[in-house]
């Protein structure tokens, strides 16, 4: 293709100035960008109000497309379900029979749990849901894993609240706008969640890898006790995440931990629940203060 005509400025002084000024403005744009990057590196929350405003403004359209997304997924599920409904039905019947027995056992266990907790006077405040909302959009082109939630300060969402679906933990609220909020997903590499193995409570940290998996780092180094298929739940240490929220399944073992898959794929969930951030009960006061002082 031939070069487009008239790219070079002419002998006209005016045209030369215009060209020069546009180049200067381009360089100025780069300089402004550099300054903004430096500001946001030094103070990451500096532009959160601006982002909140933008998310609020685009929220109605994002909500609409989110409902469209749900519709598309449901339609697809119905179409595929049509083809293997018979085998699926038989399998579900079998599983339901087993699950009914398990449920009865679990009811007994939870009743016993409650009785024991009453005995020890451990009161556990009920984890109230603050809001139910859709995840409307996400940063699908960036290496950071943020999602936008369709509820904000108008529905009492505050920063730090954990967000979960019925399958497990999704993330936590980072920035709050008036009708939207920015959620840091657990798969982001800046998200670190204290977890434990569901069966015996081996403590670990789950850090996002940025590619949809989690890196499990054991707290007690030594022989790696994890096995493939282990389920990890949040341990609640440090507060913020309520203990016992399902989180991930171990898929691969590495030398000092494991790679795990997140249980709740956020793109498969219609609605997520924003919970109150959890504060662990304060440590009990020393039993005999007076005797300590006497010594």
């Amino acid at each position, binding site marked *: *293709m*031939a*070069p*487009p005509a008239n*790219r070079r400025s002419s002998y006209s002084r005016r045209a030369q100035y215009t060209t020069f000024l*546009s*180049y200067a*403005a*381009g*360089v*100025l*744009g*780069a300089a*402004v*960008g*550099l300054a*903004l*990057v*430096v*500001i*946001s*590196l030094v103070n*990451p929350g*500096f*532009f959160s109000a*601006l*982002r909140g405003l*933008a*998310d609020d403004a*685009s929220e109605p*359209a*994002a909500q609409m*497309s*989110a409902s469209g*997304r749900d519709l598309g997924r449901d339609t697809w599920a119905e179409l595929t379900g049509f083809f293997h409904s018979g085998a699926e039905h038989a399998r579900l019947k079998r599983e339901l029979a087993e699950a009914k027995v398990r449920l009865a056992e679990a009811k007994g266990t939870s009743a016993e749990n409650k009785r024991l907790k009453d005995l020890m006077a451990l009161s556990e405040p009920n984890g109230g849901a603050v809001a139910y909302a859709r*995840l*409307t*959009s*996400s*940063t*699908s*082109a*960036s*290496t*950071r*894993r943020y*999602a*936008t939630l369709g509820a904000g300060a108008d529905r009492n969402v505050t920063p730090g609240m954990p967000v979960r679906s019925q399958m497990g933990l999704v993330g936590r609220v980072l920035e709050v706008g008036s009708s939207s909020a920015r959620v840091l*997903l657990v*798969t982001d*590499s*800046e998200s670190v969640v204290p977890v434990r193995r569901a069966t015996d409570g081996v403590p670990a940290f789950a850090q996002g*890898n*940025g*590619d*949809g998996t989690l890196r499990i780092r054991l707290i007690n180094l030594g022989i790696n006790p994890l096995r493939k298929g282990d389920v990890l739940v949040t341990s609640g240490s440090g507060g913020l995440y309520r203990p016992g929220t399902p989180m991930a399944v171990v898929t691969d073992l590495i030398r000092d931990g494991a790679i795990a898959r*997140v249980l709740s*794929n*956020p*793109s498969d969930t219609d609605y997520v629940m924003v919970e109150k951030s959890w504060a662990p009960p304060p440590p009990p006061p020393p039993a005999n203060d007076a005797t300590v002082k006497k010594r």
Partner: protein
Amino acid sequence: MFQRSASRSTTRQRINHAPSRFLARGFPWLTVMLGSLVPGWFMIASAPVMPPLGFLIYLGWRQLRPGLLPIWAGLPLGLFDDLFSGQPFGCAVLLWSLTAIALEIVEVRLPWRNFVTEWLMAMGLIVAYIVLCLALANLAGAASPFRVIVPQVVISVLSYPLVGRVVAMFDRIRLAPIVLLR
């Protein structure tokens, strides 16, 4: 003669109509902004899978119609992209402005181009853009490994010719004669 004018009707030369001035100037800006905003709505991704569509459309306009978007267009368009991209704020402003300057310099040196050279040029810019985005995000506190962006780089590079086609379609819409002259 009539036949000839009939065959020319593919260019939509309608008597008495002219392209809308607002559309001719503003449509590129609008499409780039939609490219920044809309892909996030399609899925709640747990890995970077979507190509940076705003950047690709911006690049497409720059290559199809050099000079239509001014060199400083990276400043406002990048600001808009930063609001939704999740990158540290200012990342797109910086990188889009640098892209425009780099493209201008290369075009002055290499005025003759074809499909392959344009794609190669875009390839270099896209790879540099995604890698620098990762570097800036990691500077700002993330710790994503390099292999996370490999699928995104491949998808972006391969989808660029398609984006170029779509931008060419936008260009025809931009210049469609819709305003009635009196």
